[in-house]
C-alpha cells in the first residue's frame, strides 16, 4: 500500500501533464482538416474517449472473468469499477459525438448510422448492469450474476467497434484503414498523445474510485464488527 500511493500520484501528475501536451498539440500543432475545418478538432477528444470506454468495459469483463474462474472476492469491486468507468466514458462519447454530429452533419443524432446505434445499445446494456446489481442482495450470488452480465456485454464491444467497417457507412467515415491512419503525421501524433492522456486519466480515476469503494466496504465491515 505504501508503494501504491506514490505511483498513483505520479500517474495522476503524468495524466495532467499529458492532457496539457495533448491540448497544445491539438490546437497548435495539428493542422486544420481540409474537409471539416475546425470542427474536426472534436475527433481528438471524441475517439480517444470512445476507445477508453471500450477499454474500461473490457477491463470490467476481464475482472468478471477472473471472479468467475478464481472466486476471488476482490474482483467483484474491480469489475464493478471498470464497468462504472466505462459507463462514464460511454456517456461522454455520446455527448461529444452528438456535438460533433451537429457541427459536421447538422443533426444531434441520426438513427441511420449503425455505429451510433450500436454504441447506444452497448451503453444502455451497461446502464442496465447497475439496475441488475443493485436489485440483488450483496453477497456471492450478486457477485456471480453481475460478473456474468459484465462478461456478456463485452461481446458488444467488437461489434460496435467493427460496425463502422461492416456497414461501410459513408456518414461515419473510417479513419483507420488497412493502409494506415487517413490523416497527416502531425494529426496522428496529436491523436496518439490525446489517447494516451485520456487512457491514463481513466486508469487513475479507476484506481482512485476502487480505493474509495474498498475503503467504504472495509469501514462497513468494521462498523458491523464493532456493533457486535
Amino acid at each position: 500500500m505504501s508503494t501504491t500511493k506514490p505511483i498513483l500520484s505520479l500517474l495522476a501528475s503524468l495524466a495532467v501533464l499529458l492532457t496539457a501536451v495533448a491540448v497544445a498539440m491539438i490546437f497548435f500543432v495539428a493542422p486544420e482538416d481540409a474537409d471539416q475545418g475546425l470542427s474536426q478538432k472534436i475527433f481528438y477528444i471524441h475517439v480517444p474517449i470512445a476507445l477508453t470506454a471500450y477499454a474500461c468495459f473490457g477491463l470490467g469483463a476481464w475482472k468478471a472473468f477472473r471472479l468467475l474462474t478464481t472466486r476471488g472476492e476482490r474482483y467483484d469491486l474491480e469489475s464493478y469499477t471498470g464497468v462504472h468507468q466505462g459507463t462514464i466514458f460511454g456517456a461522454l462519447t455520446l455527448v461529444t459525438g452528438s456535438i460533433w454530429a451537429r457541427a459536421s452533419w447538422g443533426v444531434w443524432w441520426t438513427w441511420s448510422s449503425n455505429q451510433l446505434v450500436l454504441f447506444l445499445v452497448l451503453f444502455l446494456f451497461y446502464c442496465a448492469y447497475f439496475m441488475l446489481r443493485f436489485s440483488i442482495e450483496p453477497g456471492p450470488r450478486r457477485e456471480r450474476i453481475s460478473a456474468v452480465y459484465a462478461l456478456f456485454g463485452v461481446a458488444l464491444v467488437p461489434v460496435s467497434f467493427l460496425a463502422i467497417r461492416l456497414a461501410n457507412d459513408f456518414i461515419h467515415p473510417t479513419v483507420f484503414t488497412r493502409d494506415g491512419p487517413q490523416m497527416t503525421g502531425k494529426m496522428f501524433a496529436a491523436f496518439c498523445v490525446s489517447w494516451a492522456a485520456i487512457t491514463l486519466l481513466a486508469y487513475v480515476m479507476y484506481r482512485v474510485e476502487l480505493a474509495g469503494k474498498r475503503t467504504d466496504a472495509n469501514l462497513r465491515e468494521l462498523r458491523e464488527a464493532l456493533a457486535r
Partner: protein
Amino acid sequence: VSAAEKYVAAAYAVFLVFVLAWLVIIATKLARLERETGELVRLARSGAATGEPGDG
C-alpha cells in the same frame, strides 16, 4: 465566434465538466469516509475505555 468554434469549445467543456463533477463526487465521498472513520475510532476508543476496568 463561428459556429464551429462554439461546438469545439462545447465538446472540450463537456469533458472538463465531467472530470470536475467526478472530482466533486470523489471529494464528497472522501469527506464522508473521513467522518465515518472518525466515528468508528471514537466508538472503538469508548469501547476500549469501558472494557478496561473489567479486564483488570
